């Protein structure tokens, strides 16, 4: 399977998983968790995380924008996901350069994955970028300086569940991805 087709299919799959499955998690299967605010995990930023290393930055920004817009259409959030995704795509290269031991150019066109990076670096990479995404998204969503504790609670709750879903995704799909590489 070509690398373009694979990423395109991943885009569709992640948007559908997020839009049709995870978005309804808070009301269907999530019991009211005490006084915690209702929240949903975000798995769709994984598309940006898993783009091949040699992807040009302009393409990544455009892909992030389109991904965010399609999520906005699903969740009626205007352009919040788009703004968060574009920022995340912009920050990706610097995070990867800081985490990987060799120069990015030396790796060629591989997908950043658990197989290639190892568990700890991959999860750090995912956690940093997801934190950027979640923080930007929730700042725009809440937009109130007085509820900073609420903002932090919600960001952390969402981040933890998002990472859990990212790990599940990595466990499910890392085999087939590494095989076809």
């Amino acid at each position, binding site marked *: 399977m070509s690398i373009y087709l694979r990423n395109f299919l991943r885009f569709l799959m992640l948007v*559908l998983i997020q*839009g*049709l499955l995870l*978005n*309804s998690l*808070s*009301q*269907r299967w999530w019991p*009211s968790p005490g*006084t915690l*605010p*209702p*929240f*949903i995990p975000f798995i769709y930023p994984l598309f940006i995380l898993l783009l091949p290393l040699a992807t040009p*930055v*302009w393409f990544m*920004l*455009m892909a*992030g*924008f389109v991904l*965010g*817009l399609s999520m*906005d*259409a*699903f*969740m*009626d*959030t*205007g*352009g*919040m996901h*788009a*703004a968060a995704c*574009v*920022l995340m795509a*912009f920050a990706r290269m610097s995070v990867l350069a800081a985490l990987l031991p060799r120069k990015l150019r030396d790796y060629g066109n591989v997908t950043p994955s658990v197989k290639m990076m190892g568990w700890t670096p991959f999860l750090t990479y995912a956690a940093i970028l997801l934190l950027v995404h979640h923080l930007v998204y*929730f700042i*725009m*969503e*809440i*937009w109130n300086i007085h*509820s900073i504790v*609420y903002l932090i609670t*919600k960001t952390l709750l969402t981040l933890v569940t998002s990472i859990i879903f990212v790990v599940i995704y990595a466990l499910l799909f890392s085999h087939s991805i590494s095989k076809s590489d």
Partner: protein
Amino acid sequence: MRKVLQLIRRFWNLILFITLEIISLTLIAKRNSLQGVDIINSSNAIVGYLYEKQNNVVYYFRLKQMNDSLLQENTRIRNELAQWTGVDTFSDSLVRIPPRTNDSGQVIKTGSSDSSRKPLGKPSVVQYATYHYIPARVINNSIANDRMNYITLNRGTKAGIRPNMVVVSNNGIVGRVAHVSENFSTVVSLLSEGRSYSAELADGTTGFMLWEKGSPDYIQLTKIPLEQKVKTGDSVFTATYSIFPANIVVGTVAGIDTVKANNTKTLKVRLTTNFRKLQYVYVVYNEYATEQQGLEAKNEKSE
């Protein structure tokens, strides 16, 4: 000139990044007005179609739950009906109900135009219905957002839904229609900041309902006078002059706070509408809404 081009090429990524962020921020800014003309919403054809397909699957698993809620609603409506039949409503006028063409046995075919002007049908006391209810299925529902929560319905302009119509559920109120496409519509749910509706207690004391983020089960009723006696468990209804039909139950009082600053009480109201399990809603079509709004707009102009 060449220098400028070189500069643009060098900072091309940064320029693109800033442009995209500005576009997104513009979209966010446009969304916050109810009449905003944003393109990105779930009443568009593709997302609406996907939501409907998903709902067709999920729908099946929730039939039992829905049966129960419909049975409850039937009971409530039957009880209400029992109250009204046998009541002598002096306040309503004696009118003749015109026969409808689809009423069997009542259609009187009139040949000349003269006889058609005569009042037809049997005389009866009626209260004119100003509200009509359009049933719709909830195909997407969000409760986890902090400022605006939207609901997507599987009915649109074809079914007669227009923007700004109010939406009620079988046992409470839901929100207001924001965007409508041919087959789908989105509703700004009650769980949205900056949308206040009037509500009243059983004795007619009115206040404003406001949602505060954090819980989809509670809403706040503000501006209740301090001397008003309120107990937890008291019912809260929609006010007579609110945009909702009057006397629909909103919820029950769950907590009482006194605001010292302006000598009022703020009540925490537990909603009767369960936003987590919303399946069917009714979009309320008010026959006199346009007339009323036109008149009120004139008032504002003259002021």
